[in-house]
């Protein structure tokens, strides 16, 4: 439980961090450390260089601006929990932040790290899929916006280039008649999800579901969107029957592995139950 030796850098600016990243080529970025440090201690990750970006100023904020909710990559989970904007306008993010690990982890762990790690077991990826967010990456040539659907490429793999740092998240600003929810089944507090379902939807004036995003946690190799489930509900009036049909579609399109958290059968059943419940809760909140 003691990492291999590594060289540690703690640049004060983003520019310095980016230049170090280019210089070393194989460096790992450390922000809150709650994904990376366990891997280091188990010697599953053995980088030669670690660039600690947690001291860089100006990367921690939550603000609504220009049609987006903008969240700085170094924003801690506890900052999300305590934000009035998040609490009153983005309950899906509040749900997720409260369910991530435990308070001592949330006081250090960052939303950027949670996404950049590319782990389908993390909670924010499904939430960002539901919210149809954009991930902002900064590299030597400046910023680029990556739609979340193009961000998660595979098992622990993201669209971030080796010389890029995830710096910001853009979420479409909350519209009228919009509600969201994130439900997670876990074996005990602090656990990764047995299954998690994120739903964000907007109703039109007729009460039809005009827009819907459904993201799933820890039931696939990479974070996944439940497209078939979304298709069942999009443009429709959400009857019990349709919600059940959508939930079934989500349960069928996910691809969980059997592990200590449950069998494939159990996990699919949980995706179904959680999808039904999350859609209902999102509809309730969209009033």
């Amino acid at each position, binding site marked *: *439980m*003691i990492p*291999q*030796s590594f060289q540690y850098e703690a640049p004060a600016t983003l520019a310095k961090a980016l230049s170090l990243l280019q210089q070393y080529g194989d460096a790992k970025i450390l922000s809150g450390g709650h994904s990376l440090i366990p891997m280091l201690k188990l*010697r599953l990750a053995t980088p030669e260089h670690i660039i600690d970006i947690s001291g860089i100023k100006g990367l921690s904020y939550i603000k609504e601006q220009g049609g987006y909710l903008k969240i700085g990559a170094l924003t801690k989970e506890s900052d999300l929990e305590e934000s009035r904007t998040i609490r009153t306008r983005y309950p899906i993010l509040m749900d997720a932040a409260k369910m991530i690990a*435990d308070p001592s982890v949330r006081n250090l762990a960052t939303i950027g790290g949670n996404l950049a790690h590319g782990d389908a077991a993390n909670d924010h990826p499904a939430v960002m899929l539901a919210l149809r967010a954009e991930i902002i990456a900064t590299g030597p040539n400046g910023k680029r916006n990556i739609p979340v659907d193009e961000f998660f490429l595979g098992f622990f793999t993201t669209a971030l280039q080796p010389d890029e740092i995830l710096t910001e998240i853009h979420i479409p600003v909350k519209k009228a008649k919009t509600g969201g929810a994130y439900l997670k*089944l876990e*074996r*005990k*507090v*602090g*656990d990764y999800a*047995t299954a998690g379902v994120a739903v964000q939807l907007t109703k039109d004036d007729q009460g039809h579901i005009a827009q819907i995003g459904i993201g799933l946690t820890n039931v696939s190799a990479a974070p996944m969107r439940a497209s078939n489930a979304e298709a069942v509900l999009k443009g429709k009036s959400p009857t019990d029957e349709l919600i059940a049909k959508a939930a*079934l579609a989500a*349960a*069928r399109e996910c691809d969980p592995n059997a592990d*200590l*958290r*449950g*069998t494939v*059968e*159990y996990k*699919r*059943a*949980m*995706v*179904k*139950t959680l999808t039904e419940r999350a859609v209902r809760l999102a509809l309730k909140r969209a009033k």
Partner: protein
Amino acid sequence: MFCNTSKEISGLGHGMKRKEDARFLQGKGNYIDDIKLPGMLYMDIVRSPYAYAKIVNIDASKALAIPGVLAVITGRDLEKYKLHWMPTLMSDTQMVLPTDTVMYYAQEVCVVIATERYIAADGVAAVEVEYEPMKAVVDPFKALEKSAPVLRPDKGKTDNHIWHWEAGDRAATDKAFEKADVVVKEQMYIPRIHVASIETCGCVADFQPVGGQLTLYMTTQAPHAIRTVLALVAGHVGLSEERIRVISPDIGGGFGGKVPVYPGYVCAVAASVLIGKPVKWIEDRMENLQADSFARDYHITCELAATKEGRIQALRFKTIADHGYADAQAAPSKFPAGLFSICTGSYDFNTAFTEMDAVYTNKAPGGVAYRCSFRVTEAVHAIERMVDRLALEVGKDPAKLRMENFIKKDQFPYKSALGWEYDSGDYHTALKKAMDTIGYNKLRKEQAEKRKRGELMGIGISSFTEIVGAGPSRQFDILGIKMFDSAEIRVHPTGKAIARFGTKSQGQGHETTYAQIIAQELGIPAAHIEVEEGDTDTAPYGLGTYASRSTPVGGAAAAMAARKLRDKARKIAAYLLEVSEEDLEWEPGKFFVKGAPEKAKTIQEIVFAAYTNHPPGMEAGFEATHYYDPPNLTFPFGSYICVVDIDKETGEIKIRRFVAIDDCGNIINPMIVQGQVHGGLTQGLAPAMYEEFIYDDDGNLLNGSFMDYLVPTAVESPHWETGHTITPSPHHPIGAKGVGESPTVGAPPAIANAIVDALSHLGVTHMDIPITPQKVWKVLKEKGVVKAV
């Protein structure tokens, strides 16, 4: 509650704040890892990635090339000093380090000694071990098959059977079963779990090459026993008992896991002896979980025979006990199955038979008494589950069935079918109080209504009887040393005292409760009594703290030593007051002349006189020692009731209420008792719903870290509602019984019974613990309540 002293004295019954907490709460505890000695080296351990493999070669050259790595010690190195094997407490042997074969996942393979902790870890990563894996024996039932590889040919074994143990009358029991109206039977597994104390194990071994003295700072619940064991097993390399000093500093939880001697301790001692410098070894969390002694791991076939009205006639239990590759249990020598024969529980019947076969497998050795007086948890789980099973079979409310079968108050002392003499009890009152507290009848009505609506709600009872305080010397010893315990009280001239004990607190609050016992007996305020344990150079000999024995044995020794001093105080008081001893009366804190209470001497005045004006012919000073050999064990009991609601779509179980009524006899400190009960209940919740070691077919432990070994937290714990009844022990000097383990023992069957009760109308009769949401969901799917996608 018995309480006849002033708050200033704070004898029995006062909820005084714990004297030890000031240092713990301010971060000033002194734990093993706080000990730093000049020139100290660090040890880290290379562990096996296989459950069963031949060691082909150990190449330490790359490790030894790392600057700061001083030595790599293998089993072959220890073999030169005949230190590569060590005895267990149960007359078995286990490896310190292997010479040829590794027998379980995460077994110690060799150790690296370095100048820094981090360098030692780099050394471990650099040691190259070549293994030849073999097919591991994982399932204890398959281990007994003829085709299974024999794991311990070194013990002269031709199969994997370790021992057979039985108690009771087999023939009479079989006959009772043949004649019975009703027989109920279940196959139960009490899973392999781990104590998972907050502090892992570790030591600092400090050998002085010039004088040959060894000081061993060690996380041990039994420092004196450890010193004797060291002298016995390492006498041949020059360690002699008078030159060994074992110091057990503050301990962050023991729960039985810090009774055994682990290979790491021996390696650190060997390294210090070989190198002549202090060596520190501190386990990390994964090592602690994966390699240190497990608890439980019993497969029990349980049967009860009864009349059609549900009156229990006989009990028949047959157990397969998986001990891993060595029987490294921590139990009294004559009790290979611990005190499992308490399995007839709180019930009055004459006929019982229980037998057990212990088996070797390729798993970590052990069988510690995890917050349990030697296999009592397993026994209580089996009988309390079976009583519910019987109630279901005969269609009777489980509370009513218990009431009809309980041993009655006037039957005590009660001789149980398997030979124990229960000292005292009042089971009906405890259950009635629990039922009244929780509103039992109302809950049953609610359950019936919920069932009609398809909702799942269950109520579970556990009315357990514990057996603690090992133990009487005619039966109880460890490696031949009788299981007495000791107290030494030294009162200073100003009336303040230090008391030393052979036990060792790991969080129980001895510094407070022992002081209160002495305060009760001598009238010296508890605040003026320092309690010290854990240093073999200063404390009187004792066998340590486990199996709820501190209050029944150590606490009794304190009371008896204090009474010796009170007798002396009477003599001094008579001398000072110029009256005869018979003319004096005692009230806590002073002797006074009968009929003339103004003529009195306080204990402080008397003690001062013992040093300044002692009677002619009397020894000066005010000190006493007592070695207490208990006449019997004590039998704490209680009734717990648990209410659960189940989410049938996810299988999640919510404990809505949990009422625990405990009877531990006279209470020393009600606040500490409540704390003990809260902690114990949470450690009972753990195996009931969360904890279990899971091995794959190759013997790999799949959940050897806190990511997957699920220790419940405050979030998972329900609101515990506690209460008590008081039935003093008739033979204990202060009528106390011990309480630390009752809740750990009593809680799991209450929870399991509640969950099974919630599902019983679907035809469910038993579920093995831990009962998890996925297990519940699977049952609901099988019963057609929910459907798979």
